[in-house]
């Protein structure tokens, strides 16, 4: 690709590690390299690092340190929650409820549970990607042990009414997990206020390192571990702790908590400019997800008559990095199950385009995108038989 301006607008895919975070991590590769389980000076210092991070991560979601189980990814946290909690409650029943727009680490984990005799109910979402708490309530049965509904969706940005859903789940006597991977660190998340029993979060969504994530699990909730092995994380997640990454997650959590509102405010402003700019500069574009109840750094669209991967490639050629939920951009060649669940036709879902801003995003970046996107859309529409047909039908 050419050496033009480079604009990263794919922060929901992953964020860079902040310099302060990396700095906090560095000693743990060198001097403080010990194994936290070791009974000596090196082990002790590593353990202190991990335990400090546990407190910092707990604070970010208003939990307590002992309720944090560190994992290696949001995917692992979700698998641990869904499989671990469901399997921990089999004495009570074998029914779980998830939404249609969950990340695959929840949705497919539920499918895997079906193979061992669980029943899974998938509740729908509306056109904005919202789950209706009443719909959840309606689907909870006597043998429902777990409901898992995500906090924010990373493809359309929609934020669910988790507190309301948690309330109906609690009243019905089931446990409630929320995948908050896309939200924690970006918007306030308080496990007590939300009233959930388990919550997944991942460091690389808030300027912490890859390889560190966590499940917050309310004290007393029974959990069958995914893995067997040593005594790390109270035996619930064995394996040598990824100390530097955990320490980095702690630091990133601390910073995210401190800077939350100013970060969000800046993101919201840039994001709103981007949305307004694109909607006015390009015809036949739909904003996907909820217009207000959405992540502050999130702007997602469907551009009609053209396909997402082609747009990605041409944007990339201009130095702009975004993502898409089109079939062609997925390894499985299926359009985003999220967009389809929201009632968007396959043809339209093909034009999915997803921008997410971050701490390094500038007004110039937004201007650049608003300048570069329209000719790309025009160019692809000129090749598109769907657009030609549309023009003919409209014209004639």
């Amino acid at each position, binding site marked *: 690709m050419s050496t033009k301006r480079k604009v990263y607008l794919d922060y929901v895919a992953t964020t860079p590690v902040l310099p302060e975070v990396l700095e906090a991590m560095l000693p743990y590769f060198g001097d403080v390299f010990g194994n936290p389980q070791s009974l000596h000076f090196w082990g002790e210092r590593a353990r202190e690092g991990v335990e400090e991070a546990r407190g910092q991560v707990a604070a970010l979601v208003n939990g307590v340190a002992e309720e944090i189980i560190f994992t290696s990814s949001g995917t692992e946290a979700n698998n641990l929650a869904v499989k671990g909690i469901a399997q921990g409650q089999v004495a009570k029943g074998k029914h779980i409820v998830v939404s249609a727009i969950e990340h695959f680490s929840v949705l497919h984990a539920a499918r895997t549970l079906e193979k061992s005799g669980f029943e899974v109910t998938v509740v729908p979402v509306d056109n904005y990607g919202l789950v209706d708490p009443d719909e959840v309530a309606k689907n909870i049965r006597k043998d429902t042990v777990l409901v898992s509904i995500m906090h924010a969706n990373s493809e359309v940005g929609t934020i669910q009414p988790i507190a309301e859903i948690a309330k109906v789940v609690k009243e019905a006597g089931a446990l409630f997990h929320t995948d908050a991977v896309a939200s924690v660190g970006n918007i306030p998340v308080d496990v007590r206020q939300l009233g959930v029993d388990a919550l997944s979060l991942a460091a690389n969504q808030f300027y912490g390192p890859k390889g560190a994530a966590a499940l917050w699990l309310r004290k007393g909730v029974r959990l069958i571990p995914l893995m067997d092995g040593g005594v790390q994380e109270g035996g619930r997640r064995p394996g040598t702790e990824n100390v530097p990454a955990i320490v980095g997650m702690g630091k990133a959590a601390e910073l995210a908590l401190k800077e939350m509102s100013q970060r969000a405010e800046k993101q919201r402003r840039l994001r709103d400019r981007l949305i307004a700019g694109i909607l006015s500069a390009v015809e036949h574009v739909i904003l996907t997800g909820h217009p207000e109840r959405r992540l502050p750094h999130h702007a997602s669209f469907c551009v009609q008559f053209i396909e997402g991967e082609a747009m990605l490639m041409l944007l990339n*050629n201009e130095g702009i990095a975004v993502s898409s939920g089109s079939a*062609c951009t997925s390894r499985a060649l299926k359009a985003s199950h999220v967009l389809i669940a929201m009632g968007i036709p396959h043809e339209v879902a*093909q034009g999915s385009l997803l921008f997410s801003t971050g701490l390094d995003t500038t007004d110039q970046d937004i201007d650049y995108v608003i300048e570069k996107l329209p000719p790309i859309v025009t160019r692809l529409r*000129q090749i598109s*038989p*769907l657009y030609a047909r549309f023009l003919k039908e409209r014209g004639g």
Partner: protein
Amino acid sequence: MPMYSDKVMDHFMNPRNVGEIKDADGVGEEGNPVCGDMMTFYIKVKDNRLEDVKFQTFGCGAAIAVSSMVSEMAKGKTLEEALKITPSVVAEELGGLPKNKYHCSNLGAQALRRAIKDYATKKGLKLEGLEGEEHEEAEEN
């Protein structure tokens, strides 16, 4: 986009023969909206040769590159020669296609074949290579 060959990238960035032929002698459409790639081929025939070929494509980078490549390969060929352009020949000519892209994006040859068939049907022609499998089973590369 490292999973695409330079040839694919070139045809995607600079697609040849884009557009519609208003008074086409044959038109062929191929593709489906679930996979996400759809192509329309237009041909102009003179003395049993493809005097002009144009296409429109809704789809990913590979789909656009394939269409462009097919149009370029087809132009100037006799109808019989053009019918020998198969998905695997196109993929090879493009320096390969990513495995998972092969099936969906590589529909250009079929769209062309449909256009030729359209022409042949209108003209009442029987062409060698047109009978048989409409959809060559695309091999993985």
